């Protein structure tokens, strides 16, 4: 514990992950954190894209070449899915901050909804991207 807590009561600890049975709200919580970390990388890709664009046509071609390689596409699709999941989970968090959506059935339903929304929105965006590319 940091020195800031000296003299204070011990701060409460949450139970360790291993004693919980897996359920959708727990999975959504972990996914929210994991997608947040993934999106950090996504912003770095965005900053790199801006830099490549300002560096000229050759640099831009090289950068987009990397992004459209199989590995690059995997990263981009992952970032898209992360964005939509994190967005949905963010709405849930804002509702909780307003004191709403804590009922067990509501929390589970909105957790499932975050996954479904992320899946559908990701498919929609990438179908649009590939359709535009083909057409």
């Amino acid at each position, binding site marked *: 514990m940091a020195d*800031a*807590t000296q003299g204070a*009561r011990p701060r409460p600890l949450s139970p360790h992950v291993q004693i919980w049975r897996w359920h959708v709200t727990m999975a959504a919580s972990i996914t929210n954190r994991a997608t947040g970390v993934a999106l950090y990388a996504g912003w*770095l890709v*965005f*900053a790199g894209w*801006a830099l490549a664009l300002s560096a000229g046509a050759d640099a*831009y071609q090289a950068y987009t070449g990397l992004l459209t390689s199989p590995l690059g596409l995997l990263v981009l699709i992952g970032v898209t899915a992360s964005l939509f999941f994190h967005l949905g989970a963010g709405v849930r*968090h804002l509702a909780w901050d307003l004191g709403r959506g804590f009922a067990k059935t509501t929390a589970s339903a909105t957790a499932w909804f975050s996954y479904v929304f992320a899946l559908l929105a990701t498919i929609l965006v990438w179908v649009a991207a590939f359709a*535009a590319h083909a057409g």
Partner: protein
Amino acid sequence: MNLYRTDLGRARGLGSAKHGVGHFIAERGTGVALMLLSVWLVPFALRVAHGGYLAARDMLASPVNAALAILTLVVGLYHAMIGMRVVIEDYIERRATKSALLILNALVGWGAAAIGAVALLKLVFASGS
């Protein structure tokens, strides 16, 4: 941000340590901003992906697109940075490692935001001449 702490919270010594409330509000504020910016970002990214180099430069010559791109990047990185800060504080116990990672987090986040923003500004101002 001590303004938001209740007397009881302060007295019991169990309120947020250091700058917790400011962090909490910044995380929510930037989160809401990013929800709104996503509405611009997703179609913009699709058009950029479709159009190639010249189309991307053209789109960013518009001050509105450039401003929104810079806002999205800076607010997004700030949100990511304060989120990553929580992750580091949660999982890294050793004080030296934790401090080093928190400093690295700030350097990478602000560095990428500054580089990206200046790169985008360069495009806007270059296109005017």
